[in-house]
């Protein structure tokens, strides 16, 4: 199905004008995503991963670039024209505490998108669909009339997922869906998302800062740094053979729950991410890189190149 992808992103950019200058939040991101697959987008705060997710759903207007969904260019569509498409493109947010209306019951929360988009008519049919969705996401029927504050984070996140599923979407952008949850609950939600993908054939874009979560979850992983993609590869390849110096540092920085002789040595990178404002025409990672080459890295920001089959890296030093 390689010639018929569900989503194609071409050279997506989003600039914000700030008092200090133009902020390059997303700068030339491209990828394709096939139906039923998961793309993990990883990076640290401020790398543009959430902005990318929001641009794809056109929750914010991209500055330039193309978003092609099911073969149609949706970049220039107006809000009204987007409306029928919204059903197919849904989002699950990070914080199940602030993304749900505290004055609505679980029934109201889950049926709201169904009523709003006129998917099903008749009170009984809507209620039946709501209960079916609750079963799908593993919420017991006794919660149907409770309010979000009566539920723990895991159950609230299940409501968020049910709301997204209510529209029978093709693709769901999950923006840090488990970051606010305890580990044992995190595992429950990750398993649920995985099961739903299997049952419903969903396509996911999984945005997170937690590399261990994307490893478990994704087919392909894209690593972002200061608005650009620095590496993209199948998950197993990326973890076994990271090529970009930033990816290596990022992998090495994960505190592994291993004690004893099997524990790998850690490499800590210096410095911090700075805001991508008024950037020089050079590699954006150069200042933190442990092997910058003068005359190469300071000449232009490198673009993604396919160094091995399906393994793309943006680093001028690598051959």
């Amino acid at each position, binding site marked *: 199905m390689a010639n018929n992808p569900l989503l194609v992103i071409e050279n997506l950019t989003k600039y914000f004008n700030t008092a200090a200058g133009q902020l390059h939040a997303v700068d030339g991101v491209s990828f394709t995503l096939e139906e039923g697959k998961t793309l993990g987008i990883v990076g640290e705060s401020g790398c543009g991963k959430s902005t990318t997710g929001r641009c794809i759903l056109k929750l914010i207007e991209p500055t330039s670039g193309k978003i092609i969904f099911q073969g149609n260019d949706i970049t220039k569509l107006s809000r009204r024209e987007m409306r029928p498409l919204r059903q197919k493109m849904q989002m699950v947010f990070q914080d199940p505490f602030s993304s749900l209306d505290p004055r609505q019951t679980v029934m109201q929360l889950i049926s709201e998108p169904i009523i709003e988009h006129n998917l099903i008519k008749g009170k009984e049919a809507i209620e039946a669909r709501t209960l079916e969705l609750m079963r799908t996401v593993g919420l017991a029927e006794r919660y149907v009339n409770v309010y979000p504050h009566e539920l723990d984070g895991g159950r609230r996140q299940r409501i968020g997922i049910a709301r997204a599923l209510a529209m029978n979407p093709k693709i769901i952008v999950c923006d840090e869906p488990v970051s606010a949850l305890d580990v044992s609950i995190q595992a429950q939600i990750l398993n649920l998302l995985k099961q739903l993908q299997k049952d419903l054939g969903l396509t996911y874009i999984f945005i997170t800062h937690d590399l261990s979560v994307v490893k478990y*979850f994704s087919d392909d992983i894209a690593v972002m740094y200061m608005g650009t993609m620095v590496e993209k590869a199948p998950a197993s390849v990326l973890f076994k053979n990271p090529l970009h110096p930033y990816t290596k540092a990022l992998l090495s920085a994960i505190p592994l729950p291993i004690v004893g002789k099997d524990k790998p040595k850690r490499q800590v990178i210096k410095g911090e991410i700075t805001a991508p404002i008024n950037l020089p025409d050079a590699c954006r990672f150069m200042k933190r890189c442990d092997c910058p080459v003068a005359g190469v890295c300071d000449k232009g920001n490198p673009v993604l190149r396919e160094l091995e089959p399906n393994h793309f890296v943006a680093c001028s030093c690598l051959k």
Partner: protein
Amino acid sequence: MELVLDIKDLVVHYETEDADVAAVNGISLAIGKKRTLGLVGETGAGKTTTALSIMNLVPDPPGVIKNGSITLAGNDVLAMNDEQLEAMRGNDVAMIFQDPMTALNPVMTVGEQIAESLELHQNMTPEEALEKAKEMLKLVGIAETRAYDYPHQFSGGMKQRVVIAIALACSPKLLIADEPTTALDVTIQAQVLELMKDLINNRDMAMLLITHSLGVVAEVCDDMAVMYAGRIVEKGTVDDVFNNMRHPYTEGLFNSLPNLKEQGEMLEPIKGLMPDPADLPPGCAFAPRCPYATEACTAAVPELESVDGSATHFVACQAYSRPGFALRRNKDGK
């Protein structure tokens, strides 16, 4: 070994009109000099209440320390009057909180904030204190010249370094760090953990590190205690617990972690939720979620007992009275 902190049989409840919340139910902990103890558990396990008790900072009302003793560097914390507590807090024991964004005063320069506790506890003049503050900044990897900057001029990682500088300024004997790196990015987290580890070693301190991340524990701790519903269910050196775990809850925590799994495999979450501390189940609080539980588990609260006569490794699980009992993980030889 010289003990910096010795908690014995601590019980803390929050007594409100609606409920009597049993937050901490009889825990005992000890930390020696230059040692770091990791206190692990999920939201609501009682980790933070334990930490606040050490400084006698449990909000009262509704918090009541019902039982137990806390000895910090030889002094009984619970017997101290307000004046003695003031002198102890920030001097003998310092605390680092999760969120560096809210722990700093936005209208004071960071230099002044570090100097503040030095003037108060060490009777330094403002000039001396500021000099020492600059020294502390250098120690945590920030240029001295930034002593005159305000918190908003620093990034998250830098702010947490400033908070560490404040905490360490008076050379406390014990540092309590409550989720110190949870709000930080992973590369910055690595930097801050490295820094804390070095400082504990070089300055003869002890640290109580509260976290939900087993990765962070493996990275910095010598010893660890796993808390569940206000009790310690397993404790030992990190090697004891990571490589020879005994409690079903500890096993459940490790099984929930995605990074150990190969791709595609389903995770094995612990079923159910942590019990409401206002209404704990009888006997072992983990029994309702435990895959190994039998009726005997609900009869009595299990006591911490030594694992195979070990001097460091303890587990509170009734199942080990059954002959031949072992966790699935240990049986499979994983």
